[in-house]
């Protein structure tokens, strides 16, 4: 057992060292700065000042608005993406099995950088030269102001969903097509058809993939930054300020480094807590 542990340790060393250096060090620095009085001028001579930054962040209504936005955005988009991806993967599976290249058309949006997606939607939604308002006006005589305070939340949600549903679809397609044929055959022999096969046999087998996709999309949704920032910035009246956008703007625009980093530390702690709970739930399921 001992030499094997030794060997494992050797194999793990490069990754662990790399993470300590490039993730651990900045994180520690981040925590240190979040507890200090610091500006861009005093980066090398920060003064430890306790939990003032945290108090400032926690009493900032804009912080809570950003938290609320991120949570709402993450939960909503992840839910719709998983549901829509599951529907498309299962409903279209006969077509995709026969012609795998169709998957390329469906997953094209994943290949596009989110920032570029935001840029493209600036063109699509532009009130004077954008095709979408133009055709809506042409056909229905009316077009909503997609980027106005009343609409912008739904606009960015739909943009995120349209780009990342293909990701869920891809995962589900792989999981769905790797369900062994004999399982379906056994279900048939037992008299299960159509919906019941799906509900009782296929869906439970897809469950781990479903949970995985939901967690990945939730994390990605909560930390959303680039597509929203490129499309509308912080949004009218700060209405699309996600947590990362809040941290970014208060760091670079506000120049208040301490509170911004305190917010990022809180964000990281919350993410760790969430991940810990999710892993424990997964462990318990696997153990049961």
């Amino acid at each position, binding site marked *: 057992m001992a030499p094997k542990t030794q060997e494992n340790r050797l194999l*793990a060393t490069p*990754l662990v060292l790399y993470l300590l250096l490039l993730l651990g060090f900045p994180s520690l620095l981040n925590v240190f700065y979040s507890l200090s009085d610091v500006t861009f001028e005093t980066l090398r001579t920060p003064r430890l000042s306790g939990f003032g930054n945290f108090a400032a962040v926690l009493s900032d209504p804009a912080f809570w608005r950003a938290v609320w936005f991120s949570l709402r955005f993450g939960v909503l988009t992840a839910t719709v993406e998983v549901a829509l991806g599951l529907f498309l993967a299962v409903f279209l599976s*006969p077509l995709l099995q026969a012609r795998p290249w*169709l998957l390329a058309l469906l997953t094209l*949006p994943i290949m596009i950088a989110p920032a570029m997606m935001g840029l493209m939607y600036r*063109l*699509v939604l532009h009130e004077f030269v954008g*095709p979408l308002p133009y055709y809506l006006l042409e056909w229905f005589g009316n077009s909503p102001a997609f980027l106005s305070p009343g609409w912008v939340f739904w606009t960015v949600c739909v943009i995120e969903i349209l780009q990342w549903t293909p990701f869920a679809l891809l995962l589900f397609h792989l999981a769905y097509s790797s369900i062994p044929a004999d399982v379906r055959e056994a279900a048939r022999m037992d008299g299960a058809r159509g919906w019941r096969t799906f509900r009782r046999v296929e869906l439970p087998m897809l469950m781990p993939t479903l949970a995985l996709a939901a967690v990945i999309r939730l994390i990605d949704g909560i930390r959303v930054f680039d597509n929203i920032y490129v499309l509308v910035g912080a949004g009218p009246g700060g209405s699309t300020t996600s947590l990362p956008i809040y941290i970014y703007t208060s760091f670079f625009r506000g120049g208040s480094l301490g509170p911004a980093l305190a917010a990022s530390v809180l964000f990281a702690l919350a993410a760790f807590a969430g991940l810990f709970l999710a892993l424990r739930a997964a462990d318990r399921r696997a153990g049961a």
Partner: protein
Amino acid sequence: MNALRWAVLVIAVLVMNMPVIVTIVTSLKPPAEIMSNPGLIVESPTLANYATVVTVSDRLNVWAYLTNSVVAASIGSLLPLALCLPFAFAAARRGAASGAGCSCLWW
């Protein structure tokens, strides 16, 4: 049923790729038309925009940007492979008992 599947597929592809389609169509319009015609039917299609992009000037060198992307993407895919492959091998050999959450504990 298959006709319905095809319909859903076509709609999904068109809607999800709408920004890509709009971008491609717009790239074929001359600058003046981009301002005057928001529709998807191009009146006077041109490849002039592409010619501008691939021509190297001191303000715009698309080949240099492409090189940057390729270099960054190569490092981004080779480095994780080099670092994670040994770790994954070790983690897998430890057996199913070590989940993703605790595999770093035995370091």
